[in-house]
């Protein structure tokens, strides 16, 4: 099994005229601070007077931690303004659209796992969020993802999108032929060869799984701008 949970405790990026610091609150505070110190010291004079934005990636409810780190930065470095990133879930649509359109996704860590090649019988792949495979998935293989599953190839085997309980997830492939499909808590078994050719996707409608022609019912067609996922 492949483990993709190895994420750096602190990521530092240049953003516009300033710096963007993303911390992973699952690491101990002392470790986070030591890592921030190390990274900022490496920047030397470049960090002086830089405007800094602090955020916690996908984790929320970490305001106190962020506040303590902010104070630490104020006391130990000669930075410009220190701001905390807007709460992800509460940004209004208008601002989100602006963020997406102004390439705000540059600052967002993505949990998409993308793999290239053939997934064979007996191989199991787990992705925390979305899973993209450019290649075929053979009978006997198993895919599980917290979000969507996209296969640019033939999809056989067992697939579970939206693990454990998100039935808003979808499963897409260029040739859709899995033996078992699960989305969130809903399960369906494959009906063997469908005879239908071309790209299809599965999603949940009224508590059951439906498989649709992607070219006719493209689920993303109505989305007016490209959104960070």
């Amino acid at each position, binding site marked *: 099994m492949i483990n993709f949970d190895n994420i750096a405790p602190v990521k530092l990026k240049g953003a516009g005229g300033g710096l963007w610091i993303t911390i992973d609150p699952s690491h101990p505070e002392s470790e986070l601070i030591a890592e921030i110190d190390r990274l900022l010291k490496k920047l030397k004079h470049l960090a002086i007077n830089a405007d800094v934005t602090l955020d916690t990636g996908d984790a929320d409810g970490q305001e106190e931690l962020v506040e303590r780190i902010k104070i630490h930065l104020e006391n130990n470095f000669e930075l410009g303004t220190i701001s905390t990133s807007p709460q992800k879930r509460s940004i209004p649509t208008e601002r989100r659209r602006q963020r997406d359109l102004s390439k705000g996704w540059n600052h967002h860590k993505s949990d998409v796992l993308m793999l290239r090649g*053939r997934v*064979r*019988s*007996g*191989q199991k792949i787990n992705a925390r969020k979305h899973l993209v495979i450019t290649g*075929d998935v*053979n*009978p*006997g293989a198993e895919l599980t993802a917290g979000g969507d599953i996209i296969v640019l190839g033939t999809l056989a085997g067992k697939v579970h999108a939206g693990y454990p309980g998100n039935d808003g997830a979808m499963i897409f492939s260029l040739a859709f032929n899995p033996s078992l499909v699960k989305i969130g808590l809903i399960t369906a078994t494959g009906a063997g060869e469908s005879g239908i050719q071309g790209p299809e996707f599965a999603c949940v409608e009224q508590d059951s799984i439906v498989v649709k022609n992607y070219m006719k019912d493209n689920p993303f067609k109505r989305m007016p701008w490209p959104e960070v996922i």
Partner: protein
Amino acid sequence: MEGKVIVVTSGKGGVGKTTATSSIGAALALEGKRVAIVDMDIGLRNLDVVMGLENRIVFNIVDVVQGKCKVDQAAIRDRRIDNLFLIPASQSDNKDVLTPAGVERMAKVLRQKFDYVIMDSPAGIERGFENSVVSANEAVVICTPDVSAVRDADRVIGLLYARSLEPKLIVNRIEPARVERGEMLSYKDVLDILSIELVGLVPMDEKVLISSNTGTPLVLQNDSTAGQSFRRIAKRLNGETIPIEVPNLKPSVWTKLGKTFGLK
């Protein structure tokens, strides 16, 4: 120059590993190579029977690995084909007497004495499989055109890649009439899923059973379609580029396949 160790494996049992090992070994010897066939199927001795050598066994692979005898003492010379030797399995010993390290040591000696060492592995992906692949330089996967054999072969291919071996494929027991009637997967269906280099297609042939019952090498029978397929497979493994013949109801039709078909 050091010889090459080729492991013959399948995942599923009864698909033709032993048949392929003995035939490819014999065919490589007919090409003038020094060949040792090694039976890794401990507890189920059977290559010696297929090759008609069971009455001449004195030592076996376990004796070699445990240092009770030299490789030369255990290797039985084939009665009909020069340069062909068998290291038999042990029927009495427990499966776990062989270890990867022990097999590795034996393979090192064999590589110095032979051009090709062909290992017949037991079905499954347990200890016996480990032992068979540990010293391999090349791997050949045998698959029959049915769903469960393909599933198991796929599994084994994944495991072989994980050991940096790029396996080659033989599809065995093809029945053209049943493929034509849609009762059997075609070799293309198999290749579609496994997508590794194909080294040969072997038809169903009643001569296979006759040959193993009488202990006469299949590849010496000019009227055996399977035997002739294995001779071509051996040539390909030995580096020759010859077209792959597709078993067909009309045996005169040859189809030429690109060398990298199904892979790139």
